[in-house]
């Protein structure tokens, strides 16, 4: 097993167990999109554009009662160590689906019947935890587009490396560690909208891991709010 925690209890990149990687978020930077956001978290660089609500009749899939939410998570060919083929992989298709399912519970889609809302997620550079960062950013972009929502959705992965529960896995920790457990949550209601896990945890560890994720999500939620404040109310504060 690779040594991922040093004697002083620090992780490879110097973080403590409950510490997020450096991150930054920005709202509304694409001119033609209804809403957009950019996030950097660790080595992740992710751009999200939201188009809609728009007419769904010329596109496939219509719902008479509410807007249809579509989501595409896509990695640019040069975003990874090995070049990634531009065709969508099975991994990207699954992640697109779970991200959509993580965001949809927050949205009040019945305000826009027979329309479609497209979320386009472009991973410019990938690192561990790109699906969580994508959800966090997409939530900002949806708020920027004015899609009504019950709450922002904030997401982060927790994991187990060398027997310790840690927050916000890096790429190496994800690959070499024992467990990867990404979680997305609407913090007001405490509802978890995404949960996946690879690896083994005891029931106690699992409970602790969720608490660890909640702490991280709170911190990310503050940053999501700041990004929106920066775009909409900046001149108010100054």
């Amino acid at each position, binding site marked *: 097993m690779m040594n991922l925690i040093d004697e002083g209890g620090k992780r490879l990149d110097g973080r403590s167990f409950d510490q997020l990687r450096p991150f930054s978020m920005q709202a509304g930077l694409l*001119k033609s999109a209804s809403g957009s956001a950019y996030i950097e978290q660790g*080595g992740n660089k992710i751009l999200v554009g939201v*188009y809609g609500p728009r007419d769904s009749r010329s596109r496939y899939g219509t719902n008479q009662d509410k807007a249809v939410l579509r989501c*595409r998570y896509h990695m640019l*060919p040069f975003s990874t*160590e090995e*070049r990634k083929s*531009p*065709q969508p992989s099975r991994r990207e298709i699954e992640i697109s689906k779970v991200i959509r399912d993580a965001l949809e519970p927050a949205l009040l889609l019945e305000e826009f019947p027979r329309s479609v809302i497209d979320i386009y997620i472009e991973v410019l550079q*990938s690192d561990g935890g790109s699906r969580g960062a994508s959800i966090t950013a997409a939530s900002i972009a949806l708020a920027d587009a004015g899609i009504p929502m019950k709450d922002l959705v904030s997401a982060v992965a927790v994991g187990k490396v060398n027997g310790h529960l840690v927050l916000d896995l890096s790429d190496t920790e994800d690959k070499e560690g024992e467990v990867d457990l990404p979680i997305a949550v609407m913090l007001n209601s405490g509802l978890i909208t995404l949960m996946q896990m690879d690896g083994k945890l005891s029931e106690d560890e699992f409970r602790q891991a969720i608490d660890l994720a909640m702490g991280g999500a709170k911190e990310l939620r503050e940053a999501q709010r700041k990004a929106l404040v920066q775009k909409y109310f900046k001149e108010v504060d100054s």
Partner: protein
Amino acid sequence: MKGLVLDNLRRDQLTDAISKGRRLDGRGMSEYRKLEIRPGIIPKAEGSARVKLGDTEVMAGVKIEHGKPFPDTPDQGVLIINAEVLPLASEYAEPGPPDEDAIELARVVDRGIRESKMVDVNKLVIVPGKEVYLMYVDISVISTGGNLFDASSYAVVAALINTKFKILKQEENGSVTPTGETSELPIVDLPVSITAVKIKKGIILDPDVEEESINDGRLTVAYDQEGNLCAIQKGQASGLKVEEIMEMVKMGKEKVPEIREMIRGALEKNG
């Protein structure tokens, strides 16, 4: 792909201004929009650059792999350029495999780079006839604000110059392994792409999205360092007169040094 239907008030103003030798955004007929080039923005790629040309925004990334050469060029490295207009780039873009516009874009950029002999592919050989370097260059369009050809070409040129890759060697057992050293690409030219469009009787360079939507003919020309024309693509379903083409070529050639300096300047500042 459906596109912008420009409103007639705006269209009339645009064509009227151009017939008087002006442009609505205040630019001269040969003037480019603000060009920003940021090389090296994707550390995981061997080379990368993000280019903003007015509202147009493009990224290019270079990945270097190794493999068999093409049978007809056994002693040369391989250059492969792809382009994708990301669905977030405009309200008219759709996800899916590259459409004919994206394929044309990749091929036009490719010809400018290839025919200028910008990269000395003869030096990108590991074992002649067996193992060569493969340069994958991917263009990702982030925002379609007009003149994707030039913006994409500048991004690719900057990304190639920005590239640093691991030098490989073949072991006795045939496997290819890194030597531990890195290298820049053998760059021997710096081609510059210039796109002109005709609107009614006027000719302008670097059309924005509105100008592009009403153009009566487009010409993209790549110029090498010697001032030669090394690749041309005429676009749009309309005819251009020889004099108009020569005027476009002349305007382009006069513009080239300025753009080349901007690309060099951006690479030096960041490099």
